[in-house]
């Protein structure tokens, strides 16, 4: 029943939010809803009873599609991330005023429901259904509440992802007809017999859909623009949670269904990802906008995760996959922290440009300390959560190809360059006219950042619980590979 609640609570409360009048009511309502969802997600993480973690009902019997949801370790981890990020973002942006707040918060909750559905679905048609469903609220959120160029930019984002999804739909249909029992169930998809040639093109149809969502070079062009133009609360969800949809889908649906194709195309994908890592890192150095810098930094981080996933099927590579698992959570935490700071700066000073900022640490010391912790996590400094994940991912990648690991490794240095450059330009040096009268952030912002900082350091020192949580999923995927 827990998986159903995780979807139903945001859907129902989200629909109600549309009709709530005034400024405050929708805010409080959605914050409460998000906290309840978080509570349910935590209960799910600690639950071990199959009856509570699985749900299976007939949906469209004529097609063999079932409304089946299940919550294994990976789903638990991602649902926890989704459930945790919404109250954090709502809390940190509590003072922001959006025109038509009811619609804004309603769409946010629908987005949450879509994301939960993607992580929980164990029927491929249902998965596709939620995959698209998450896109629609995101489209409206970015288009209605974004920056100046929002309409064209969001439309590009929509068309890109929609096209990718449609290609995936064709592949889903093809596999569906090849399953012996004509079903969309995860198990049926895992057991379907496909020739190498079929796997080849089906792999690309799925991969392009996922690669656009992640995004992996060269399918990333929508991402910096969309992150820049979307309202920051939405950007936080897009980069903190939504990009995980792509990574998650690769692990859940791509690797186990097309093992031969993965083994065949792994070099190609890994080098694309590595090229993306270096390319995005270099571009990040040259940015003048904090949002764009974090967007490019995100492409680099996601690229490393993609590379580690595809390297994981080689002997010893499972450590890389394990690294990806915990890094999905860690990256979400870190990047949401960064966005919260960006939002705080933008709301107070009305600018995100390095050229217009400086010396903020003198006026907002609390924010500066917390931001530096987030920045260190972004560079994956030891003692922060990201270090553990990146170490494991590089370890996995190294066992696959020394060259790929070496080239990708350059990104560690580049990440330090652009992240510390950002910290320096925004917080240190002398104040400029814009930051002269700045004050420290609200308590709500600092509280949310402090929670994130605790998580960052906590998981940096003791990552074992997270590793244990996702261990079953890693083993299942690796076993599938080794069985072919």
């Amino acid at each position: 029943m827990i998986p159903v609640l995780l979807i139903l609570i945001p859907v129902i409360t989200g629909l109600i939010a549309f009709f709530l009048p005034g400024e405050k009511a929708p805010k409080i309502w959605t914050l409460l809803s998000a906290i309840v969802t978080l509570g349910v997600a935590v209960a799910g993480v600690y639950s071990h009873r199959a009856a509570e973690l699985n749900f299976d009902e007939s949906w469209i019997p004529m097609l063999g599609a079932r409304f089946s949801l299940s919550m294994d370790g990976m789903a638990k981890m991602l649902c926890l991330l989704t459930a945790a990020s919404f109250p954090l973002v709502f809390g940190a942006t509590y003072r922001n005023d959006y025109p038509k707040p009811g619609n804004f918060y309603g769409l946010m909750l629908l987005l949450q429901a879509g994301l939960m559905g993607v992580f929980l679905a164990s029927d491929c048609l249902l998965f596709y259904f939620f995959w698209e469903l998450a896109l629609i609220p995101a489209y409206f959120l970015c288009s209605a509440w974004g920056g100046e160029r929002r309409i064209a930019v969001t439309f590009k984002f929509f068309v890109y992802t929609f096209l990718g999804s449609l290609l995936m739909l064709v592949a889903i249909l093809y596999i569906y007809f090849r399953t012996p029992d004509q079903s969309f169930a995860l198990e049926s998809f895992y057991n379907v017999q496909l020739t190498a040639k079929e796997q080849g093109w089906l792999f690309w149809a799925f991969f392009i859909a996922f690669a656009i969502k992640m995004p992996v070079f060269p399918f990333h062009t929508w991402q910096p623009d969309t992150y820049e133009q979307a309202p920051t609360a939405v950007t936080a969800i897009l980069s903190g949670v939504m990009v995980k949809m792509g990574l998650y889908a690769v692990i859940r649906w791509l690797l186990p269904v097309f093992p031969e194709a993965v083994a065949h195309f792994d070099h190609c994908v890994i080098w694309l990802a590595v090229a993306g890592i270096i390319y995005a890192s270099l571009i990040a150095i040259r940015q003048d906008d904090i949002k764009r810098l974090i967007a490019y930094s995100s492409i680099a981080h996601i690229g490393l995760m993609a590379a580690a996933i595809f390297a994981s099927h080689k002997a010893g590579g499972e450590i890389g996959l394990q690294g990806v698992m915990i890094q999905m959570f860690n990256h979400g935490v870190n990047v949401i922290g960064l966005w919260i700071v960006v939002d705080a700066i933008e709301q107070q000073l009305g600018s995100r440009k390095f050229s217009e900022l400086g010396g903020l640490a003198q006026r907002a010391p609390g924010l500066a300390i917390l931001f530096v912790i987030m920045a260190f996590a972004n560079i994956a400094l030891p003692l922060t959560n990201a270090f553990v994940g990146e170490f494991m991912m590089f370890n996995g990648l190294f066992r696959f190809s020394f060259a790929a690991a070496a080239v990708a490794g350059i990104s560690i240095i580049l990440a330090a360059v652009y992240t510390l450059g950002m910290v320096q330009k925004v917080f240190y040096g002398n104040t400029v006219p814009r930051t002269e009268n700045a004050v420290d952030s609200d308590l709500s912002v600092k509280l949310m950042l402090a929670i994130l900082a605790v998580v960052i350091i906590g998981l940096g020192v003791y990552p074992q619980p997270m590793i244990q949580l996702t261990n079953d999923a890693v083993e299942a995927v690796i076993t599938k590979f080794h069985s072919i």
Partner: protein
Amino acid sequence: MNAIILSAIWGVVMMFSSVLVKNKGAFRHIAALGLLVLLAANICDSYGPSFFPINTHDMLRFDSFGLFFNSIAIASTLIFVLLSGKDIEKAGSYVAEYFVLIFFVLCGVCILSSFNTLLMLFLGIEILSIPLYILTGSDKRNLKSNEAALKYFLMGSFSTGIMLMGIALVYGGTGSFQLEVIRSVFGSYKGVSFLEVTGLLFLLVAMCFKVSAAPFHFWTPDVYDGAPAVFTSFMATIVKAAGFIAFLKLFDARVADTSTAVNWKMLFCIIIISTLLIGNITAVFQQSVKRMLAYSSIAQAGFMLFALFSLNDFAREGLLLYAAAYSLATIGIFAILLKMKDYTFEGFNGLAKKQPLLAAANTVFLLSLAGIPLTAGFFAKYYMLASVVKTGGYTWMVVVGVLFAAVSAYYYFRVIQAMYFKDGEGRTEEVSGSFKIGVALLAGLIILFGIQPQALLNWFYF
């Protein structure tokens, strides 16, 4: 049989009512009542009792497929009348007669869904077409409307001629008008004669004209644009869907699968891809939403043609689902379009601020036409694609279809962008509360079928 006879009778009843009743608004109610009766009678027919046990000498054959389609068509017409009935009153001065003509068109629709000989096909097409020529020209003071009617009539007559020629040749070749006989001739391994193949090709051309498949689509944008918008809504939905049902019945059971004279699959491939190409690409460049919908109807026809390409159970179920999903969404959009003062994309600017409910409902209709999940349109497109994948070997065509579906998102989303994200007046005419409720219910229905398509499909297997 119920639907055919009753629609004709109710048409005549309405014709007399135009003499007796002077209140223009009353006709709408009489028509809605008639449609309710028709729907009830058709559902009765589906479950067994036919009120008119007439021996049709196997010229008509009533099966669940045809009867279910009749229900869809009648229900759609009922929704059309309820939502846009008032606008029919504005189209011209002969209000009752317009409703009469709509009933006669429905009579043609019901014949097309159950014909079993080529003669009945011809009769059905003509009964359906002739009232449409008149409806197209109903705004007789408008030059565009006159031109559209003339164009439609002339082109329609040509296609009728071609169809008759096709029927004659097929008859010459097979010696029968019966579909079974024709099928068995085409299905046999003896090979088919020149007459039969040419006849069938002529029929193909005529049917392509009726459903506005490329390259016989040229009349569509001009006629749809010229006709009063309220009748365009009717023509583009119920009438077009009926054309497809007839097309499917004619080419069902792969009439010419064993024939080597013509590569039918490839022929359909070419027709489908060119229809999708022309419909979608031209729709992108339109400035008027009405013209965009005309071209998008060509594009949607391309998708429906997938059913004719694959001709399996998915295709049949899917075509019914498509007919329902597409008709409901398009009727909804046209109903809203009729309330707009300006039919261009700019005319929709800022509609969400002025009329949030209309904009929200319109968004659902547009999402359905684009085939986004949570709407009936998704499953409609899904079935069409699935039918082709099931055929095997033509997955590339599905990919092409999918690429064009992505293109279609462009022009459908332009309307959404205009309504929600652009500043403007969004000027509409007076919108009544009941109209808003009607549109909202229609949007709800589309979402219901989008979440639970089984609710609709269950009916198919009554």
